[in-house]
């Protein structure tokens, strides 16, 4: 009688598909990555209603101390001196990219007069839509206390 040969167990971990999985993950990150044009650190207000902001949008950010940065959406944001500079910036954006929305990224604690001047500049430059950037308000959260 012929004896059955003893089966040999492979002691290695099969890693042949590792590269496939890794490349799939890389493709996922490459597709979803978006480079932020404005990295100003602000505490955003929280809202329940939120709409997706178009990818091609100009940014105006205002920090709690009133420092303003602008970006047309094509380059990294730069600091501007005053709301008058925002007007000339916005006018050039509207002239170059008609219909481009503006995103207002303001700290929730900034005095409204700073925001008022920026909104006024955007209105005067014939901007059509402003998005007030916000964070999602969670259930049961008091909007008055949100964001510290």
């Amino acid at each position: 009688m012929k004896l059955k040969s003893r089966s040999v167990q492979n002691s290695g971990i099969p890693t042949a598909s590792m590269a496939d999985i890794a490349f799939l993950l890389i493709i996922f990150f490459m597709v979803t990555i978006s480079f932020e044009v404005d990295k100003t650190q602000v505490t955003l207000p929280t809202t329940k209603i939120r709409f997706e902001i178009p990818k091609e949008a100009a940014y105006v950010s205002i920090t709690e101390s009133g420092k303003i940065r602008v970006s047309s959406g094509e380059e990294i944001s730069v600091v501007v001196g005053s709301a008058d500079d925002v007007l000339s910036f916005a006018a050039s954006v509207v002239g170059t990219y008609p219909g481009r929305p503006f995103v207002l990224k303001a700290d929730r604690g900034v005095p409204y007069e700073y925001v008022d001047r920026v909104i006024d500049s955007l209105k005067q430059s014939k901007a059509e839509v402003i998005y007030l950037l916000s964070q999602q308000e969670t259930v049961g959260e008091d909007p008055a206390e949100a964001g510290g």
Partner: protein
Amino acid sequence: MKLKKDTISDEIPTSSMADIAFLLIIYFMVTTTFAATRGLDFSLPQEEETQPLVEKEESILIEIRPGGAIYVDDNPMELEDILEDYIKEKLEANPTKPVIIRPDPNAEYGHMVDVFDELRQAEEKIGFEIRNVSIPTQREIDMFWY
């Protein structure tokens, strides 16, 4: 003497492929930032030569004072009561009535957004949308407020 023959592998060496791929993954994971890309939209009226004057009696005026106190047509109100207790009744009689948000220059921007967000939830809370919400700037108030 036995000569040793060099054997050349006909396979592409792929053993380091996974290492390279994982390095790229780590790079993307570190550089990816999950940015807030949502917010409240706010359509701006296009300026005309002659601005229509809005009579105070024809609109609902929401004032936001420093500290966040809210006054609706001079009546102090809590944020969550504005729609149910006041605006619903007013707009049922006249759905086109403009609602004007007027924050004090020293009020916090966050309080203005809270009020605007509340008004945008009108359809969910009181069953109909507020068609005409405006936030005039100080320049517009100085020019057109009677």
